Protein backbone atom coordinates (compact mmCIF):
# COMPACT_ATOMS: atom_id res chain seq x y z
CA UNK A 1 0.00 0.00 0.00
CA UNK A 2 1.30 3.47 -0.82
CA UNK A 3 1.31 6.37 1.62
CA UNK A 4 -1.68 8.61 0.99
CA UNK A 5 -0.84 11.13 3.75
CA UNK A 6 2.76 12.14 4.45
CA UNK A 7 3.44 14.74 7.14
CA UNK A 8 7.00 15.84 7.78
CA UNK A 9 8.07 18.04 10.69
CA UNK A 10 4.80 19.98 10.71
CA UNK A 11 4.80 23.17 12.77
CA UNK A 12 1.92 25.60 13.29
CA UNK A 13 2.15 28.71 15.40
CA UNK A 14 -0.96 30.91 15.43
CA UNK A 15 -0.23 34.62 15.00
CA UNK A 16 -1.55 35.53 18.44
CA UNK A 17 -0.10 32.50 20.28
CA UNK A 18 3.17 32.27 22.16
CA UNK A 19 3.71 28.55 21.68
CA UNK A 20 3.37 26.19 18.74
CA UNK A 21 -0.05 24.53 18.46
CA UNK A 22 1.61 21.78 16.41
CA UNK A 23 5.28 21.29 17.15
CA UNK A 24 7.28 19.12 14.75
CA UNK A 25 4.75 16.39 14.03
CA UNK A 26 5.67 13.72 11.45
CA UNK A 27 3.69 10.65 10.41
CA UNK A 28 2.44 8.67 7.41
CA UNK A 29 -0.92 7.11 6.63
CA UNK A 30 -1.29 4.30 4.10
CA UNK A 31 -4.06 4.23 1.52
CA UNK A 32 -7.16 2.45 2.84
CA UNK A 33 -5.95 2.71 6.41
CA UNK A 34 -8.02 3.64 9.45
CA UNK A 35 -5.83 6.11 11.33
CA UNK A 36 -6.72 7.66 14.68
CA UNK A 37 -5.27 10.72 16.33
CA UNK A 38 -5.88 10.94 20.06
CA UNK A 39 -5.10 13.72 22.44
CA UNK A 40 -6.59 15.89 25.16
CA UNK A 41 -8.17 19.30 24.50
CA UNK A 42 -5.64 21.73 23.03
CA UNK A 43 -3.29 18.93 21.96
CA UNK A 44 -3.22 20.18 18.36
CA UNK A 45 -5.59 17.63 16.79
CA UNK A 46 -7.97 20.06 15.06
CA UNK A 47 -5.08 22.29 13.97
CA UNK A 48 -3.35 19.29 12.37
CA UNK A 49 -6.61 18.27 10.73
CA UNK A 50 -7.24 21.79 9.41
CA UNK A 51 -3.80 21.77 7.76
CA UNK A 52 -4.45 18.33 6.27
CA UNK A 53 -7.80 19.41 4.85
CA UNK A 54 -6.11 22.55 3.38
CA UNK A 55 -8.17 25.13 5.28
CA UNK A 56 -5.13 26.30 7.27
CA UNK A 57 -1.55 26.94 6.18
CA UNK A 58 1.28 25.49 8.29
CA UNK A 59 4.05 27.70 9.65
CA UNK A 60 6.59 25.20 8.36
CA UNK A 61 6.93 21.54 7.42
CA UNK A 62 5.64 19.48 4.53
CA UNK A 63 2.25 17.89 4.00
CA UNK A 64 1.49 15.71 0.99
CA UNK A 65 -1.92 14.18 0.44
CA UNK A 66 -2.42 11.67 -2.35
CA UNK A 67 0.89 12.91 -3.79
CA UNK A 68 -0.13 16.58 -3.81
CA UNK A 69 1.42 19.35 -1.75
CA UNK A 70 -1.12 20.82 0.71
CA UNK A 71 -0.14 24.42 -0.03
CA UNK A 72 0.58 24.40 -3.76
CA UNK A 73 -1.99 21.82 -4.89
CA UNK A 74 -4.77 22.37 -2.37
CA UNK A 75 -7.56 22.17 -4.95
CA UNK A 76 -6.36 18.72 -6.11
CA UNK A 77 -6.47 17.54 -2.51
CA UNK A 78 -9.94 18.98 -1.91
CA UNK A 79 -11.31 16.84 -4.74
CA UNK A 80 -10.38 13.72 -2.83
CA UNK A 81 -11.44 14.51 0.70
CA UNK A 82 -14.54 14.68 2.81
CA UNK A 83 -14.57 16.37 6.20
CA UNK A 84 -16.86 15.97 9.17
CA UNK A 85 -16.06 19.06 11.20
CA UNK A 86 -16.06 19.27 14.98
CA UNK A 87 -18.18 22.42 14.95
CA UNK A 88 -21.31 22.34 12.78
CA UNK A 89 -21.04 24.06 9.40
CA UNK A 90 -24.74 24.14 8.57
CA UNK A 91 -27.12 26.88 7.47
CA UNK A 92 -30.15 26.95 9.73
CA UNK A 93 -32.14 28.88 7.12
CA UNK A 94 -32.12 25.86 4.83
CA UNK A 95 -33.66 22.41 5.15
CA UNK A 96 -31.50 19.35 5.84
CA UNK A 97 -31.65 18.27 2.21
CA UNK A 98 -30.80 21.79 0.98
CA UNK A 99 -27.68 21.72 3.17
CA UNK A 100 -26.70 18.35 1.68
CA UNK A 101 -27.42 19.67 -1.84
CA UNK A 102 -25.33 22.79 -1.22
CA UNK A 103 -22.33 20.67 -0.27
CA UNK A 104 -22.88 18.15 -3.09
CA UNK A 105 -22.93 20.88 -5.73
CA UNK A 106 -19.76 22.47 -4.32
CA UNK A 107 -18.05 19.07 -4.61
CA UNK A 108 -19.24 18.61 -8.18
CA UNK A 109 -21.22 15.51 -7.17
CA UNK A 110 -24.39 16.93 -8.76
CA UNK A 111 -25.22 19.92 -10.97
CA UNK A 112 -27.13 22.85 -9.52
CA UNK A 113 -30.91 22.62 -9.39
CA UNK A 114 -33.34 24.48 -7.17
CA UNK A 115 -35.72 21.48 -7.15
CA UNK A 116 -34.93 18.25 -5.31
CA UNK A 117 -37.04 16.23 -7.76
CA UNK A 118 -34.93 17.47 -10.70
CA UNK A 119 -31.68 16.24 -9.17
CA UNK A 120 -30.04 13.02 -10.41
CA UNK A 121 -31.57 9.77 -9.13
CA UNK A 122 -28.17 8.62 -7.80
CA UNK A 123 -28.12 11.66 -5.51
CA UNK A 124 -31.65 11.07 -4.25
CA UNK A 125 -30.87 7.40 -3.54
CA UNK A 126 -27.62 8.28 -1.78
CA UNK A 127 -29.38 10.90 0.36
CA UNK A 128 -32.07 8.38 1.30
CA UNK A 129 -29.47 5.68 2.08
CA UNK A 130 -27.46 7.93 4.38
CA UNK A 131 -30.56 9.49 5.95
CA UNK A 132 -31.80 6.00 6.77
CA UNK A 133 -28.41 5.10 8.25
CA UNK A 134 -28.52 8.20 10.45
CA UNK A 135 -32.25 7.82 11.21
CA UNK A 136 -33.02 11.20 9.66
CA UNK A 137 -35.34 10.22 6.82
CA UNK A 138 -38.47 11.92 8.12
CA UNK A 139 -36.57 15.18 8.84
CA UNK A 140 -34.85 15.53 5.46
CA UNK A 141 -37.08 18.29 4.16
CA UNK A 142 -37.58 20.13 7.43
CA UNK A 143 -35.81 23.42 8.25
CA UNK A 144 -32.79 23.11 10.50
CA UNK A 145 -34.32 25.53 12.98
CA UNK A 146 -36.34 22.56 14.26
CA UNK A 147 -33.28 20.31 14.67
CA UNK A 148 -31.67 19.28 17.96
CA UNK A 149 -27.88 19.26 18.37
CA UNK A 150 -27.74 15.50 17.80
CA UNK A 151 -29.79 15.75 14.61
CA UNK A 152 -27.47 18.45 13.27
CA UNK A 153 -24.52 16.17 14.01
CA UNK A 154 -26.16 13.39 12.01
CA UNK A 155 -26.66 15.79 9.13
CA UNK A 156 -22.99 16.82 9.25
CA UNK A 157 -22.05 13.16 8.92
CA UNK A 158 -24.33 12.69 5.89
CA UNK A 159 -22.75 15.77 4.30
CA UNK A 160 -19.24 14.43 4.91
CA UNK A 161 -20.06 11.07 3.32
CA UNK A 162 -22.38 12.07 0.47
CA UNK A 163 -19.75 12.34 -2.29
CA UNK A 164 -17.87 9.10 -1.45
CA UNK A 165 -14.53 10.76 -0.61
CA UNK A 166 -11.23 8.89 -1.03
CA UNK A 167 -10.01 10.28 2.28
CA UNK A 168 -12.47 10.95 5.06
CA UNK A 169 -11.42 13.29 7.87
CA UNK A 170 -13.53 12.92 10.97
CA UNK A 171 -13.02 15.48 13.72
CA UNK A 172 -14.67 14.09 16.84
CA UNK A 173 -17.58 12.84 14.72
CA UNK A 174 -19.71 11.12 17.33
CA UNK A 175 -19.95 13.89 19.94
CA UNK A 176 -23.63 14.40 20.70
CA UNK A 177 -24.79 11.20 18.99
CA UNK A 178 -27.04 8.66 20.73
CA UNK A 179 -25.47 5.20 21.22
CA UNK A 180 -27.51 3.54 18.46
CA UNK A 181 -26.56 6.13 15.83
CA UNK A 182 -22.94 5.95 16.99
CA UNK A 183 -22.99 2.20 16.46
CA UNK A 184 -24.68 2.54 13.05
CA UNK A 185 -22.08 5.10 11.98
CA UNK A 186 -19.17 2.92 13.03
CA UNK A 187 -20.66 -0.18 11.43
CA UNK A 188 -21.01 1.82 8.23
CA UNK A 189 -17.50 3.31 8.39
CA UNK A 190 -15.91 -0.07 9.06
CA UNK A 191 -17.87 -1.46 6.12
CA UNK A 192 -16.54 1.39 3.95
CA UNK A 193 -13.02 0.69 5.21
CA UNK A 194 -13.34 -3.04 4.44
CA UNK A 195 -13.89 -2.19 0.80
CA UNK A 196 -10.35 -0.82 1.06
CA UNK A 197 -10.69 2.27 -1.10
CA UNK A 198 -11.39 4.87 1.59
CA UNK A 199 -8.80 6.13 4.03
CA UNK A 200 -10.28 7.18 7.37
CA UNK A 201 -8.50 9.77 9.49
CA UNK A 202 -10.15 10.17 12.87
CA UNK A 203 -9.63 12.46 15.81
CA UNK A 204 -11.59 11.48 18.87
CA UNK A 205 -11.95 11.63 22.61
CA UNK A 206 -13.70 8.26 22.63
CA UNK A 207 -10.78 5.90 23.04
CA UNK A 208 -12.83 2.80 22.21
CA UNK A 209 -13.48 4.24 18.74
CA UNK A 210 -9.75 4.08 18.05
CA UNK A 211 -9.51 0.41 19.09
CA UNK A 212 -10.45 -0.61 15.52
CA UNK A 213 -7.75 1.59 13.99
CA UNK A 214 -4.81 0.28 12.03
CA UNK A 215 -2.60 2.88 13.68
CA UNK A 216 -3.05 5.25 16.59
CA UNK A 217 -1.08 8.44 17.11
CA UNK A 218 -1.30 10.14 20.47
CA UNK A 219 -0.37 13.80 20.58
CA UNK A 220 -0.07 16.18 23.48
CA UNK A 221 0.91 19.85 23.45
CA UNK A 222 1.51 19.67 19.73
CA UNK A 223 3.98 16.78 19.88
CA UNK A 224 3.62 13.10 19.04
CA UNK A 225 3.96 11.18 22.29
CA UNK A 226 3.15 7.74 20.99
CA UNK A 227 2.54 5.93 17.71
CA UNK A 228 1.72 2.36 16.76
CA UNK A 229 -1.05 -0.17 16.33
CA UNK A 230 -3.44 -0.35 19.29
CA UNK A 231 -1.84 -3.69 20.22
CA UNK A 232 1.69 -2.30 20.04
CA UNK A 233 0.76 0.63 22.24
CA UNK A 234 -0.79 -1.68 24.79
CA UNK A 235 2.16 -4.07 24.67
CA UNK A 236 4.90 -1.46 24.82
CA UNK A 237 3.48 1.06 27.17
CA UNK A 238 1.36 -0.66 29.73
CA UNK A 239 2.53 -3.06 32.34
CA UNK A 240 0.93 -6.43 31.89
CA UNK A 241 0.66 -8.36 35.12
CA UNK A 242 -1.38 -10.89 37.03
CA UNK A 243 -2.29 -11.00 40.70
CA UNK A 244 -2.05 -14.44 42.29
CA UNK A 245 -2.29 -15.90 45.76
CA UNK A 246 -2.33 -19.35 47.37
CA UNK A 247 -3.02 -20.92 50.76
CA UNK A 248 0.78 -21.11 51.21
CA UNK A 249 2.12 -17.80 49.98
CA UNK A 250 5.66 -18.47 51.25
CA UNK A 251 5.92 -21.57 49.02
CA UNK A 252 4.49 -19.55 46.13
CA UNK A 253 7.11 -16.84 46.74
CA UNK A 254 9.90 -19.45 46.45
CA UNK A 255 8.40 -20.73 43.23
CA UNK A 256 8.27 -17.20 41.75
CA UNK A 257 11.92 -16.61 42.73
CA UNK A 258 12.92 -19.96 41.14
CA UNK A 259 11.06 -18.99 37.95
CA UNK A 260 13.07 -15.70 37.93
CA UNK A 261 9.96 -13.61 37.64
CA UNK A 262 9.64 -9.97 38.68
CA UNK A 263 6.98 -9.60 41.34
CA UNK A 264 5.80 -7.42 44.24
CA UNK A 265 3.98 -8.00 47.51
CA UNK A 266 3.85 -10.60 50.27
CA UNK A 267 0.75 -12.32 48.96
CA UNK A 268 -1.26 -11.72 47.00
CA UNK A 269 1.64 -11.24 44.53
CA UNK A 270 1.66 -8.84 41.60
CA UNK A 271 3.59 -10.77 38.95
CA UNK A 272 4.82 -8.90 35.86
CA UNK A 273 4.30 -11.27 32.95
CA UNK A 274 3.06 -11.02 29.39
CA UNK A 275 -0.25 -12.65 28.61
CA UNK A 276 1.42 -15.03 26.12
CA UNK A 277 3.69 -16.44 28.84
CA UNK A 278 0.89 -17.27 31.28
CA UNK A 279 0.44 -20.86 30.15
CA UNK A 280 4.14 -21.62 30.78
CA UNK A 281 3.97 -20.02 34.24
CA UNK A 282 0.93 -21.99 35.36
CA UNK A 283 2.55 -25.25 34.16
CA UNK A 284 5.59 -24.52 36.34
CA UNK A 285 3.69 -23.65 39.54
CA UNK A 286 2.93 -26.43 42.00
CA UNK A 287 1.11 -24.14 44.46
CA UNK A 288 -2.63 -24.47 44.59
CA UNK A 289 -3.75 -20.97 43.61
CA UNK A 290 -6.65 -19.40 45.50
CA UNK A 291 -6.67 -16.16 43.44
CA UNK A 292 -5.88 -15.36 39.79
CA UNK A 293 -6.55 -11.89 38.39
CA UNK A 294 -5.36 -11.06 34.86
CA UNK A 295 -4.75 -7.39 34.22
CA UNK A 296 -5.59 -6.80 30.54
CA UNK A 297 -5.09 -3.13 29.68
CA UNK A 298 -7.48 -1.27 27.40
CA UNK A 299 -6.39 1.40 24.95
CA UNK A 300 -7.99 3.92 27.28
CA UNK A 301 -5.58 2.91 30.04
CA UNK A 302 -2.69 3.25 27.59
CA UNK A 303 -3.91 6.70 26.60
CA UNK A 304 -4.37 7.87 30.17
CA UNK A 305 -0.94 6.57 31.12
CA UNK A 306 0.77 8.27 28.17
CA UNK A 307 -1.00 11.58 28.72
CA UNK A 308 -0.36 11.29 32.46
CA UNK A 309 3.35 10.61 31.88
CA UNK A 310 3.62 13.53 29.46
CA UNK A 311 2.02 15.86 32.00
CA UNK A 312 4.36 14.58 34.69
CA UNK A 313 7.41 15.21 32.48
CA UNK A 314 6.30 18.77 31.88
CA UNK A 315 5.97 19.60 35.55
Amino acid sequence: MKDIIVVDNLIKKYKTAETNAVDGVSFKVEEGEFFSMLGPNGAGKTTTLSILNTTLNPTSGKVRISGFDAINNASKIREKIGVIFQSPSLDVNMTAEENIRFHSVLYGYIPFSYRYKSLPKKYQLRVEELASLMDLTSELHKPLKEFSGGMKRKLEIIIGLIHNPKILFLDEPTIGLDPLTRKNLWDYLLQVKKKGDTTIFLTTHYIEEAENSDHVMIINKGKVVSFGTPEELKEDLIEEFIVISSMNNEFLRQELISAKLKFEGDGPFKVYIKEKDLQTLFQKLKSKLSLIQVHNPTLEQVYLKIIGDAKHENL
Partner: protein
Amino acid sequence: MRTFNAIFIIAYRDVLKLFRDKRRLFSGLIFPIASIAILGSSLDANLSQTVGFNFLVFVYLGVMVQNMFSSTASGIAWLIEDRQNDFSQSFFVAPISRYAIIFGKILGESIVSYTQILGLLAIGYILNIPLDLNKLLLLLPILFLICFFGGAFGVLIMANFMDKRSIDQVFPFFIFPQFFLSGVFTPMKNLPDYLTVLSRITPLFYAVDFVRGIYFYGKPEYSEVVIYSPLTNLIVMTVMFFAFIIIGTYIFVKSEKER
Protein backbone atom coordinates in the same frame (compact mmCIF):
# COMPACT_ATOMS: atom_id res chain seq x y z
CA MET B 1 -18.99 23.63 -15.19
CA ARG B 2 -18.43 22.85 -11.53
CA THR B 3 -17.41 26.46 -10.98
CA PHE B 4 -20.69 27.77 -12.44
CA ASN B 5 -22.72 25.25 -10.43
CA ALA B 6 -20.88 26.37 -7.30
CA ILE B 7 -21.55 30.05 -8.07
CA PHE B 8 -25.25 29.30 -8.62
CA ILE B 9 -25.71 27.27 -5.42
CA ILE B 10 -23.93 29.91 -3.31
CA ALA B 11 -26.16 32.59 -4.86
CA TYR B 12 -29.27 30.41 -4.48
CA ARG B 13 -28.63 30.13 -0.76
CA ASP B 14 -28.75 33.93 -0.41
CA VAL B 15 -31.98 34.16 -2.38
CA LEU B 16 -33.56 31.37 -0.29
CA LYS B 17 -32.54 33.20 2.87
CA LEU B 18 -34.16 36.41 1.65
CA PHE B 19 -37.49 34.83 0.76
CA ARG B 20 -37.57 33.00 4.09
CA ASP B 21 -36.93 36.23 5.99
CA LYS B 22 -40.09 38.27 5.36
CA ARG B 23 -38.98 41.18 7.54
CA ARG B 24 -35.78 41.63 5.51
CA LEU B 25 -37.76 41.43 2.28
CA PHE B 26 -40.23 44.05 3.51
CA SER B 27 -37.60 46.48 4.84
CA GLY B 28 -35.62 46.13 1.59
CA LEU B 29 -38.63 47.42 -0.31
CA ILE B 30 -39.65 50.15 2.12
CA PHE B 31 -36.29 51.89 2.71
CA PRO B 32 -35.65 53.03 -0.89
CA ILE B 33 -39.29 54.07 -1.30
CA ALA B 34 -39.03 56.21 1.83
CA SER B 35 -35.72 57.75 0.66
CA ILE B 36 -37.16 58.92 -2.61
CA ALA B 37 -40.64 59.81 -1.42
CA ILE B 38 -39.50 61.91 1.53
CA LEU B 39 -36.02 63.20 0.74
CA GLY B 40 -36.32 63.38 -3.06
CA SER B 41 -39.62 65.24 -3.01
CA SER B 42 -38.39 67.67 -0.40
CA LEU B 43 -35.17 68.44 -2.30
CA ASP B 44 -37.10 68.74 -5.54
CA ALA B 45 -39.46 71.31 -4.02
CA ASN B 46 -36.50 73.41 -2.86
CA LEU B 47 -33.89 72.96 -5.59
CA SER B 48 -35.57 72.18 -8.91
CA GLN B 49 -35.89 75.74 -10.03
CA THR B 50 -32.32 76.65 -9.00
CA VAL B 51 -30.55 73.83 -10.85
CA GLY B 52 -32.59 74.07 -13.99
CA PHE B 53 -33.44 70.40 -14.53
CA ASN B 54 -35.88 67.84 -13.12
CA PHE B 55 -34.30 67.39 -9.74
CA LEU B 56 -36.63 64.57 -8.69
CA VAL B 57 -35.39 62.45 -11.61
CA PHE B 58 -31.84 63.35 -10.64
CA VAL B 59 -32.37 62.13 -7.05
CA TYR B 60 -34.47 59.16 -8.15
CA LEU B 61 -31.66 57.79 -10.31
CA GLY B 62 -29.09 58.51 -7.61
CA VAL B 63 -31.07 56.70 -4.95
CA MET B 64 -31.67 53.75 -7.26
CA VAL B 65 -27.94 53.35 -7.85
CA GLN B 66 -27.05 54.01 -4.23
CA ASN B 67 -29.49 51.32 -3.08
CA MET B 68 -28.21 48.71 -5.50
CA PHE B 69 -24.59 49.51 -4.64
CA SER B 70 -24.77 49.80 -0.85
CA SER B 71 -27.25 47.00 -0.31
CA THR B 72 -25.06 44.51 -2.19
CA ALA B 73 -21.90 45.81 -0.54
CA SER B 74 -23.32 45.39 2.96
CA GLY B 75 -24.77 41.96 2.06
CA ILE B 76 -21.25 40.67 1.36
CA ALA B 77 -20.50 41.14 5.07
CA TRP B 78 -22.58 38.01 5.68
CA LEU B 79 -19.50 36.07 4.56
CA ILE B 80 -17.92 37.17 7.84
CA GLU B 81 -20.88 35.79 9.74
CA ASP B 82 -20.48 32.54 7.81
CA ARG B 83 -16.89 32.47 8.98
CA GLN B 84 -17.88 33.16 12.57
CA ASN B 85 -20.49 30.42 12.74
CA ASP B 86 -18.20 28.01 10.87
CA PHE B 87 -20.41 27.70 7.79
CA SER B 88 -17.54 28.96 5.63
CA GLN B 89 -15.64 25.75 6.47
CA SER B 90 -17.76 23.99 3.88
CA PHE B 91 -16.81 26.61 1.26
CA PHE B 92 -13.13 26.49 1.98
CA VAL B 93 -12.78 22.73 2.02
CA ALA B 94 -14.63 22.35 -1.30
CA PRO B 95 -12.67 21.84 -4.54
CA ILE B 96 -13.72 25.16 -6.06
CA SER B 97 -11.90 28.36 -6.83
CA ARG B 98 -11.94 30.98 -4.09
CA TYR B 99 -13.13 33.40 -6.78
CA ALA B 100 -16.17 31.14 -7.33
CA ILE B 101 -17.04 31.63 -3.66
CA ILE B 102 -16.74 35.40 -3.97
CA PHE B 103 -18.61 35.58 -7.31
CA GLY B 104 -21.35 33.33 -5.95
CA LYS B 105 -21.74 35.58 -2.95
CA ILE B 106 -21.79 38.72 -5.09
CA LEU B 107 -24.36 37.17 -7.47
CA GLY B 108 -26.56 36.12 -4.54
CA GLU B 109 -26.42 39.48 -2.82
CA SER B 110 -26.94 41.24 -6.16
CA ILE B 111 -30.16 39.30 -6.73
CA VAL B 112 -31.22 40.05 -3.16
CA SER B 113 -30.57 43.80 -3.67
CA TYR B 114 -32.23 43.73 -7.07
CA THR B 115 -35.57 42.75 -5.51
CA GLN B 116 -35.68 46.37 -4.26
CA ILE B 117 -36.10 47.46 -7.84
CA LEU B 118 -39.80 46.60 -7.64
CA GLY B 119 -40.36 49.14 -4.87
CA LEU B 120 -38.22 51.70 -6.68
CA LEU B 121 -40.14 51.32 -9.94
CA ALA B 122 -43.44 51.56 -8.07
CA ILE B 123 -42.45 54.81 -6.38
CA GLY B 124 -41.10 56.11 -9.71
CA TYR B 125 -44.50 55.47 -11.27
CA ILE B 126 -46.30 57.18 -8.37
CA LEU B 127 -43.98 60.22 -8.58
CA ASN B 128 -44.43 60.41 -12.36
CA ILE B 129 -40.75 59.86 -13.16
CA PRO B 130 -40.54 59.91 -16.96
CA LEU B 131 -39.20 56.46 -17.90
CA ASP B 132 -40.06 55.03 -21.31
CA LEU B 133 -39.80 51.33 -22.05
CA ASN B 134 -36.55 51.61 -24.01
CA LYS B 135 -34.79 53.46 -21.18
CA LEU B 136 -36.23 51.05 -18.64
CA LEU B 137 -34.98 48.01 -20.58
CA LEU B 138 -31.55 49.62 -20.77
CA LEU B 139 -31.42 50.64 -17.11
CA LEU B 140 -32.54 47.29 -15.66
CA PRO B 141 -29.44 45.28 -16.68
CA ILE B 142 -27.20 48.26 -15.90
CA LEU B 143 -28.57 48.44 -12.37
CA PHE B 144 -27.83 44.74 -11.98
CA LEU B 145 -24.23 45.43 -12.98
CA ILE B 146 -24.15 48.23 -10.40
CA CYS B 147 -25.09 45.59 -7.80
CA PHE B 148 -22.03 43.59 -8.89
CA PHE B 149 -19.87 46.68 -8.59
CA GLY B 150 -21.18 47.29 -5.06
CA GLY B 151 -20.53 43.63 -4.25
CA ALA B 152 -16.90 43.95 -5.34
CA PHE B 153 -16.50 47.00 -3.10
CA GLY B 154 -18.07 44.98 -0.25
CA VAL B 155 -15.52 42.19 -0.78
CA LEU B 156 -12.63 44.63 -0.42
CA ILE B 157 -14.02 46.01 2.87
CA MET B 158 -15.18 42.67 4.27
CA ALA B 159 -11.82 40.99 3.61
CA ASN B 160 -10.18 43.18 6.22
CA PHE B 161 -12.43 42.19 9.12
CA MET B 162 -12.63 39.05 11.19
CA ASP B 163 -15.99 39.47 12.94
CA LYS B 164 -19.44 40.67 11.91
CA ARG B 165 -19.82 43.07 14.81
CA SER B 166 -16.72 45.05 13.81
CA ILE B 167 -17.75 45.25 10.20
CA ASP B 168 -21.29 46.34 11.13
CA GLN B 169 -19.79 49.17 13.17
CA VAL B 170 -17.30 50.25 10.55
CA PHE B 171 -19.25 49.71 7.34
CA PRO B 172 -21.35 52.91 7.61
CA PHE B 173 -18.10 54.92 7.60
CA PHE B 174 -17.30 53.48 4.17
CA ILE B 175 -20.81 53.83 2.80
CA PHE B 176 -22.44 57.04 4.11
CA PRO B 177 -19.70 59.45 2.94
CA GLN B 178 -20.13 57.96 -0.53
CA PHE B 179 -23.80 59.02 -0.58
CA PHE B 180 -22.69 62.64 -0.40
CA LEU B 181 -19.44 62.42 -2.37
CA SER B 182 -21.05 60.58 -5.27
CA GLY B 183 -23.79 63.13 -5.88
CA VAL B 184 -26.76 60.94 -5.04
CA PHE B 185 -28.66 63.91 -3.62
CA THR B 186 -26.74 66.94 -4.91
CA PRO B 187 -24.96 67.92 -8.14
CA MET B 188 -21.19 67.42 -8.03
CA LYS B 189 -20.11 70.18 -10.40
CA ASN B 190 -18.35 73.32 -9.17
CA LEU B 191 -17.08 71.78 -5.92
CA PRO B 192 -14.07 72.95 -3.90
CA ASP B 193 -10.90 71.15 -5.03
CA TYR B 194 -10.65 68.86 -2.01
CA LEU B 195 -14.24 67.68 -2.47
CA THR B 196 -13.63 67.11 -6.18
CA VAL B 197 -10.66 64.89 -5.33
CA LEU B 198 -12.62 63.01 -2.69
CA SER B 199 -15.57 62.48 -5.00
CA ARG B 200 -13.31 61.14 -7.77
CA ILE B 201 -11.91 58.44 -5.50
CA THR B 202 -15.44 57.40 -4.48
CA PRO B 203 -16.54 54.25 -6.36
CA LEU B 204 -20.25 55.12 -6.09
CA PHE B 205 -19.58 58.43 -7.89
CA TYR B 206 -18.86 56.62 -11.18
CA ALA B 207 -21.89 54.34 -10.81
CA VAL B 208 -24.26 57.27 -10.22
CA ASP B 209 -22.76 59.34 -13.03
CA PHE B 210 -22.89 56.32 -15.36
CA VAL B 211 -26.61 55.70 -14.82
CA ARG B 212 -27.48 59.38 -15.13
CA GLY B 213 -25.38 59.50 -18.31
CA ILE B 214 -27.41 56.65 -19.77
CA TYR B 215 -30.74 58.20 -18.71
CA PHE B 216 -30.00 61.77 -19.86
CA TYR B 217 -28.14 60.75 -23.03
CA GLY B 218 -29.46 62.85 -25.93
CA LYS B 219 -31.43 65.18 -23.66
CA PRO B 220 -30.70 68.94 -23.45
CA GLU B 221 -29.79 68.81 -19.72
CA TYR B 222 -27.17 66.05 -20.29
CA SER B 223 -24.20 68.41 -20.02
CA GLU B 224 -25.54 69.99 -16.83
CA VAL B 225 -26.18 66.67 -15.05
CA VAL B 226 -23.46 64.32 -16.27
CA ILE B 227 -19.76 64.77 -15.49
CA TYR B 228 -18.03 61.98 -17.44
CA SER B 229 -19.18 60.09 -20.53
CA PRO B 230 -20.82 56.69 -19.87
CA LEU B 231 -17.84 54.99 -21.55
CA THR B 232 -15.35 56.68 -19.21
CA ASN B 233 -17.44 55.73 -16.19
CA LEU B 234 -17.75 52.15 -17.46
CA ILE B 235 -13.99 51.82 -17.91
CA VAL B 236 -13.27 53.22 -14.44
CA MET B 237 -15.86 50.92 -12.86
CA THR B 238 -14.48 47.87 -14.70
CA VAL B 239 -10.95 48.58 -13.51
CA MET B 240 -12.15 49.19 -9.94
CA PHE B 241 -14.33 46.03 -10.03
CA PHE B 242 -11.45 43.73 -10.90
CA ALA B 243 -9.07 45.49 -8.52
CA PHE B 244 -11.57 45.15 -5.63
CA ILE B 245 -12.26 41.49 -6.41
CA ILE B 246 -8.63 40.46 -6.83
CA ILE B 247 -7.30 42.35 -3.81
CA GLY B 248 -10.33 41.52 -1.61
CA THR B 249 -10.28 37.80 -2.43
CA TYR B 250 -6.53 37.64 -1.83
CA ILE B 251 -6.83 39.29 1.60
CA PHE B 252 -9.91 37.24 2.54
CA VAL B 253 -8.29 33.89 1.68
CA LYS B 254 -4.98 34.89 3.27
CA SER B 255 -6.65 35.91 6.53
CA GLU B 256 -8.60 32.65 6.55
CA LYS B 257 -5.63 30.36 5.89
CA GLU B 258 -2.88 32.22 7.70
CA ARG B 259 -4.32 32.67 11.14
